[in-house]
């Protein structure tokens, strides 16, 4: 049910959208280190704090590792914490990303997707966040600046309900530095949507606690004589939390729609999937480009649909199976590569379809690394190439094709 509310359109870039969303989420601690293309996000947030528009502690740290360490400490004592980073910064944060997830802290991180060196490259691809796939964070990808705003606000709702940190990913430059219309919500509505953070951990000198100290392999008896989880039980609970987070994600999206009139009750975006025999799969802003490619191919009479991946972790296996049930051919475009294998989202799609009745051919293309422009025309051509390849072989190739000049 969409509600009537007057829109409050601003023409802003992705970083501004993320900064405003963090401010409206009333984050209490921001710890970040500037890195291209995330820099304007941190600048904007420090300005909000400086001008008194955001009542938060802005911790200017000396590295991304420290940024996440500060967020972890802040979150564990009950503060809503936020950070943003890109590329090498996210890689440098890697150890603490594990820590935040392992300690079950509902931190939200904006990852402004950028390529990783060597060689140096400040432009967009998704290798950075994909490299952090197995840290136990929920990962949600945005297609445009409105989604950045909305997803970031929802991220706190989700994170604080399931106690799993959320990474909100958006493409560097393509979104971070491109201005587009964004409907900025009312603060009162955001407050209504987002209740204050209730930590599962407490810092109370009268009742001191140890958190996440050396945990032996097996469960152990505590000083109170009760049996406590061992390391493996805690890891199981993290996996269980991600497995069960789908409902919370959908609920957060549904309730967002009730208040703001934009529906996010979905794990991915579908475009013309009802009758699609050929489905293009892409994640982030590339999913928008794919819609234009699908338009071109539809004009040629091909029944093409688009599946725009939104939630990458937890990966919505059964939903994907449902959405791809009519597809004969699935063309997956990845802005990342698992070297020696294939694009990460392609692997996910294949694994979701294994053992189901869907026996579609799958073709994977690696595109847009290090900011290489991806045109809708190129996606359409690659899709036609994939269709043609079906005549040659129905077997899915071991390795992806690259859209580059080799």
């Amino acid at each position: 049910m969409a509600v009537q509310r007057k829109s409050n359109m601003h023409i802003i870039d992705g970083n501004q959208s993320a900064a405003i969303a963090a401010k409206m989420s009333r984050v209490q601690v921001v710890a970040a280190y500037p890195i291209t293309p995330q820099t304007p996000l941190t600048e904007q947030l420090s300005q909000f704090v400086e001008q008194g528009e955001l009542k938060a502690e802005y911790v200017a740290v000396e590295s991304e590792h420290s940024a996440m360490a500060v967020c972890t400490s802040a979150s564990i004592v009950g503060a809503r914490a936020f950070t943003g980073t890109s590329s090498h910064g996210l890689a440098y944060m890697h150890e603490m990303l594990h820590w935040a997830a392992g300690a079950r802290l509902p931190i939200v991180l904006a990852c402004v997707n950028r390529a990783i060196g060597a060689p140096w490259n400040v432009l967009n691809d998704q290798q950075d966040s994909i490299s952090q796939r197995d840290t136990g964070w929920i990962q949600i990808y945005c297609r445009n600046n409105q989604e950045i705003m909305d997803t970031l606000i929802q991220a706190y709702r989700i994170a604080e309900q399931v106690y799993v940190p959320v990474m909100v990913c958006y493409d560097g430059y393509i979104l971070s530095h491109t201005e587009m219309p964004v409907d900025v919500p009312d603060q009162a509505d955001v407050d209504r949507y987002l209740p204050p953070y209730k930590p599962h951990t407490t810092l109370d000198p009268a009742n001191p606690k140890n958190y996440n100290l050396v945990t032996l392999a097996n469960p152990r008896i505590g000083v109170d004589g009760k049996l406590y989880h061992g390391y493996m039980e805690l890891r199981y609970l993290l996996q269980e939390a991600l497995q069960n987070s789908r409902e919370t994600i959908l609920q957060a999206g549904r309730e967002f729609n009730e208040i703001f009139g934009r529906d996010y009750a979905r794990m991915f975006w579908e475009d013309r999937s009802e009758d699609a025999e050929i489905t293009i799969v892409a994640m982030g802003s590339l999913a928008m480009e794919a819609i234009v490619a699908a338009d071109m191919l539809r004009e040629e009479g091909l029944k093409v649909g688009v599946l725009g991946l939104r939630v990458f972790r937890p990966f919505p296996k059964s939903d994907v199976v449902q959405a791809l049930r009519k597809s004969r051919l699935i063309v997956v475009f990845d802005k990342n590569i698992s070297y020696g294998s294939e694009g990460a989202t392609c692997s996910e799609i294949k694994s979701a379809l294994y053992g189901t009745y869907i026996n579609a051919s799958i073709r994977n293309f690696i595109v847009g690394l290090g900011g290489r422009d991806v045109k809708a025309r190129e996606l359409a051509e690659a899709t036609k190439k994939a269709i043609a390849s079906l005549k040659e072989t129905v077997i899915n190739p071991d390795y992806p094709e690259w859209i580059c000049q080799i």
Partner: protein
Amino acid sequence: MGTRDCNHICDESSPGIGEAGRTGEWRTSLPVVDDTKCTASRLNKPTCFLCWLYCPEAVMTKAIPPTIDMEYCKGCGICAQVCPVQAITMLPEEKNIG
């Protein structure tokens, strides 16, 4: 026995002895001090205490008679080795030997 009753989603405990793990449970040998042989005990004087000095776990007390914190003693047997009068005997720690 499962840990479903434990309602913590991250590792949490109250500070206290043994909270980092009662490592004494690793012990397969148990040191037993014979006070009738121990020089410090026999002379009732703060002397010798080589066992206290050499114990790598710092669980031997510099007391008369010397006592051992069994929460942490690993049963390594160093105390028995260094005791000049063989006052310490290593016995099998039956409860930890399968």
